[in-house]
């Protein structure tokens, strides 16, 4: 599903140039659950942003579902993204002005799903994730674990083929964290491909394979299954 070869990404500021990704090559197969680990600043988030088509690489190739997407313009990326990819962030990133229901509904709106279908889908997902009773609350009225469940709900509501999670448990205590990991595992078992960045060896053990990164390189891969 994902095949990147010699991927490069630089950040230039006035004084310095940072090499965030340095000829990184990775492959992720459909249905896999991959964890990405490595010290802070090694380029994990950068990698995820590129995989999620939020950012364009500066060099190398990125084949997504058999299509070369490096060099796609913003419009094409947005189109591909909204149909195929769901995101979960460490800091949840819910829109404060929208309710739980409205937040989860958002991807469906941008995918032009009809209102009646939207309602059905959102309720289904909220039900699955056991946050139905909070549907009319605003994000600030929820605990961190609940907020992250809403974020997961939003990521999956559109049935994406790929879910990208950037330290999804980073802001949660261990019991809430385990719940979220449980959710991701279930999704994976239903066939969704997952790439997850994490600092926690414990969480990484939920995955099939761990990619360890250092200074923009992939250094080792541990296959867990």
């Amino acid at each position, binding site marked *: 599903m994902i095949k990147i070869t010699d991927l490069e990404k630089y950040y230039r500021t006035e004084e310095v140039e940072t090499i965030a990704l340095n000829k990184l090559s990775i492959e992720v197969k459909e249905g896999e659950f991959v964890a990405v680990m490595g010290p802070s600043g090694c380029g994990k*988030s*950068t990698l995820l*942003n590129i995989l*999620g088509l*939020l*950012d364009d690489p500066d060099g190398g190739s990125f084949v997504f579902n058999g299509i070369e997407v490096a060099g796609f313009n*913003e*419009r094409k990326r*947005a*189109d591909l*993204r*909204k*149909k195929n990819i769901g*995101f979960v*962030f460490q*800091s949840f*990133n*819910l*829109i*404060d*002005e*929208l309710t739980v229901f*409205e937040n989860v*509904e*958002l*991807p469906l*709106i*941008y*995918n032009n799903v009809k209102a009646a279908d939207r309602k059905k889908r959102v309720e289904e997902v909220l039900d699955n994730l056991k946050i139905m009773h909070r549907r009319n609350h605003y994000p600030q009225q929820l605990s961190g674990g609940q907020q992250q469940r809403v974020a997961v709900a*939003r990521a999956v509501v*559109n049935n994406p083929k790929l879910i990208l999670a950037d330290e999804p448990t980073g802001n949660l205590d261990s019991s809430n964290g385990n719940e979220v990991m449980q959710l991701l595992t279930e999704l994976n078992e239903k066939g969704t491909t997952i790439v997850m960045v994490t600092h926690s060896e414990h969480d990484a053990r939920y995955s099939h394979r761990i990619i360890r990164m250092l200074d923009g390189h992939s250094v080792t891969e541990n296959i867990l299954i």
Partner: protein
Amino acid sequence: MIKNFFKVAFRNLLRNKGFSFINISGLAIGMASAVLIMLWIQNETSYDQFHEKKDRIYEAWNKAEFSGKLQCWNTTPKILARSMEKDIPEIERSVRVNWPSNFLFSIGDKRLTVKGNIVDTGFLQMFSFPLVKGDPKTALNDGSSIVLTQTLAKKIFGEEDAMGKIIKIDNKDNFTVTGIAKDLPNNTRFNFEYLIPWNYLVRTGGDDSSWGNNSTRTYALLKPGVSIDAANGKLKSIKYQYTKDNDDKKWEMFLYPASRWRLYSNFTNGKEDGGLIDFVKLFAVIALFILLIACINFMNLSTARSEKRAKEVGIRKVVGAQKQSLVSQFIGESVFLAFIAGIFAIIIVQLALPAFGELTDKKLFVDYTDYKFWIYAIGFVFFTGIMAGSYPAFFLSSFNPSKVLKGTFKSANALITPRKLLVVLQFTFAIILIICTTIVKQQIDHARDRESGYAKDNLVYHYLTGDLEKNYELVKDELLSSGIAKSVTKTSAPLTQGWSDSWGFNWEGKPADDKTDFDRYVADENLGATAGLTFIKGRDFDLKKFPTDSSAMIINESAAKVMNFKDPIGQIVKDDDRPYHIVGLIKDFILQSPYYPTKPMIIEGAKNGWFSVMHIKLNGANNTADNLKRMEVIFKKYNTEYPFDCKFVDLEYAAKFKTEERTGTLAAIFAALTIFISCLGLFGLATYMAENRIKEIGVRKVLGASVTGITTLLSKDFLKLVMISFVIASPVAWWMMHQWLQDYPYRVAIQWQVFAFAGLLTFFISLLTVSYQSIKAAIANPVKSLRTE
């Protein structure tokens, strides 16, 4: 999707009440000002455009050369209309409009003077002034018919039906009401309350067939589809077909279309030159600018708030929003805001209309029943919303989600470059307006303080209406003997107006090529005493002591200079061939415009006989109201039929400043509005900046920075912008005022102090505005600001 946008927009609005308030009030004020100005423009540009046949209606004008310059004017010979109809096949019909001096109407024992027109019978068929009663085709056919407006009919006859009623005019002729016209709209040059047929002039000997007497307006209706150039070609030299008159003036006539009467009919040397259209354009620009300034607030505050909105943008993009849909979302939000502001703007407009009407001397109103108004209103809301929202929309929607969501995105400084530009633009405009206001005011004061050359206090005048001319001596004697008046003089015109001028004077030693134009005035006696003139040499007219003073003359200093007499007293000056001997030399006084140098002036004695006004110097020892009351009794006694209508010279003199005062007031209002809206925006920006830098301020305070130090730090960026604005505004304002002052030969010099004043004023107002937030941020307890994370 739209619903979702509005939800966010509305919740945003409520969550950020302060900013919503600034945005909405700024926009509402800006929109209201623009709407008021547009109402005025709409009125000015629609003058006489409601006539069904407007495209075929023309007015006849003259063009002739005087002292080397082509002059154009629109009073024409009475004979022109019929001659035009006869000789020019393109003309379907021609209608004359004359304006009698205000007629006295008598109905039973009711008396009133009313303004109206004497017109050819086709008037109501040419112009669309609909009749509510009567037939426009026939209403003016009979020589003794009269058409009244609804208001006048009601004033005279109350609720009774006026049709068929009799009105006696000037105590002589009876007229029968044959039509009731709708009141005139507020956008026509015509200004009548009644119409009577031309035949009345013929009967009373007021008609003539002289080609030399330009005394009426002549309108022409072209046949459909004919060429105006062809008509004008034939009209050009029509005068010379009927007269042998070979004045070398190159006298021409031409037809001038209705579409240009109001806005363009200002001729310089025979060509259209500016006119009201210049004002219309200027005000259109001002309206646009005020709106722009209000929109700039919105732009600045929206983009300053970007840090808050950035997260939303990022998330929307992550879940699949295209840039384009975000752009529409943000523009939608600003249209929504403009819509709310629009509602407030309508309220403001409604409240301000009476005052604005007074200022512009017009009855303006908004016709809420007209669907077109609502179409324009909605269009205007969209225009404003898009103008205000487009820059923020593109700014906000271009955020890169991978940056904003990671939290590396920080708009630490509320003053990024485009925002600075916009603030500079606002304040440049504000400072220009302040400078202009100040200079306009100085110019008015300058002219007002100018020595008028005569004593205006307790001086009144009355037109010699009805029997006053006949009974003048009786009235005068009674006014003097009863102690009401100190001095009474009969004159040719009010002292505040010159009605006559001429270059046809002759005196000994006049150079052959001298064409100096003199103001010509006539007085019987005691003018010096009545008007309080200053005599340099000689004396006042005094018919009792010197009966020959009826052919005496008084001249002013400027005249003496032109005539180049060593001693003017005793010299003979001929007006055409009537000789006058000079008995007095007076200091110049302002007869006409206080903005122009006084002209050479001659005052002729009673022999001239052109009397139409009496001036009365009231006895200042009495109460003015008493004086007037007793005067009225005397006037009523000798002029029974006509109303007593006494005018104060000082009030009339003050009216000479009206146009300039209006310009000044308008400039002041625009200046105040601009400053207010701009400061509103500045306040918002300062608030954001203080919020954004709260942590920085905390750290600085912990490290020992003082409150003053921090206030200065936070305020100085803003004040720098105000200073840049000042540097840009000063030369622009100087140039504008320099141009404006060219119209006034008697004018103030532009002083640097005005610029200093405008700069300092703006500086302090903006200092107050930003320092409030800066001080608030500076005195906050740093422990609080550093705890938040």
